[in-house]
């Protein structure tokens, strides 16, 4: 999994050495499903091998559709956690962008898995 960022989609990179899946950038594609569906499919397949996984979400902008798609991804991870999988999520945000801080809090509210808000200088 190594998708470079585009004008409207974030970079999605899996670092197998660190078991780290990282999203970074802006997300407001015209067709959200076309972008996030393959990511979710990859994630499902990857989780089937029961790995330890860290996820970093470093979005600088999310539209509503992307928010929904991301919620679906997080629920997938939460199910993995509830089934005994080792997974944690960090929400990286720039303290200057209040709305992204709030979004991070909202995302974390519904999750049982280890979840942390990390301000990035």
């Amino acid at each position, binding site marked *: 999994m190594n998708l470079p960022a585009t*004008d409207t989609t974030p970079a999605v990179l899996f670092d197998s050495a660190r078991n780290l899946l990282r999203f970074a950038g802006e997300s407001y594609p015209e*067709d959200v*499903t076309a972008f996030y569906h393959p990511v979710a499919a990859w994630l499902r397949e990857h989780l089937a091998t029961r790995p330890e996984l860290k996820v970093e979400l470093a979005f600088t902008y999310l539209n509503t559709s992307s928010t929904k*798609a991301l919620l679906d991804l997080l629920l997938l991870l939460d199910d993995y956690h509830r089934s005994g999988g080792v997974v944690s999520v960090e929400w990286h945000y720039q303290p200057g962008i209040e709305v992204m801080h709030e979004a991070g809090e909202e995302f974390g509210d519904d999750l049982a898995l280890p979840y942390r808000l990390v301000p990035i200088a």
Partner: protein
Amino acid sequence: MSKASSLPPFTTDAPVEKLFARETEALRKAETTLTQQQLSDVVYEPFRELVKHHRRLLRQAMKLTTLSDATQLQLRRTTRELSTALEQVRQLNESLQTLQREREEIFAMAVHDLKSPLSGIHGLAALISDPELSTAAEHPAMGRDIGQLAEVMLATVADLVDLHRYEAGTVALRPAHHAVIDLGELLRAQLLPAARRKHIKLTLITRPPDASVYLDADALLRVVLNLATNALKFSPAGTAVELKLKLDAGLLHATVTDQGPGISADDQKKLFKKFARLAARPTGGEGSSGLGLAIVKRLVEIQSGRVWCESTLGAGAAFHVELPAAPSA
């Protein structure tokens, strides 16, 4: 602007339906199951209501998502356009400041350049008017000196006025068809007296001999005369100056080559700047406003052309001008 135009168009309903496909599918299954089961009204009715409201909620969620995406996209576009506009304002402000600084420099230099001949005139006038400081026999020579100093001042003022006019962009070009050979002969006629005075051999080459160009002849002559006058001014007596006009692929290439002292790499960098102080000095006592090459550059730019210099110190100089010389399509 290019950034903003690369944004996707507003979303239609289709992507949002895909986004909520799982929820829609779950609802459809619940509806099917509900109708297939033989349930009592007591159980059936509340579940039917639940499904109905769930369907409404789902539709509303889809609509809200679509509308919200569209609003956010518009906001995104506006933000980008705003930052583009802001950047343009910043650049405009910067170039205005540069222009302002340049104006101040030109003003200071013009004052300086006019002040020194004026002081000379003032001094000479004081000498002439005081019988104790000069004799009548000296007066004709002093009068000639005053005339020369006044000429320098007039030339400087004329150059300043021209430069101001060219930089203000109020010059209207009047292109027309001209035979290259005619332009060359005009140049030769104007340059010949100065060349003869300094015993400089002036050569004119036009290629091809029957070439015709479409451009503003006055602007071209002004540019090439300026360069050729410089060449004569800085060339020692007994050397040669070559003037070449060559038409090639719709471009007129004018070259003025001399056997003067040449121009150092350092001087070449500031050559076309206003009031550039360079090492070379006129060889026949000619005046120099320091604005000639700045005027050349501006005039060439107005004609969408380019001007450059090739020279090695001590080995003469060649000034090149390239101008579009065909009617634009």
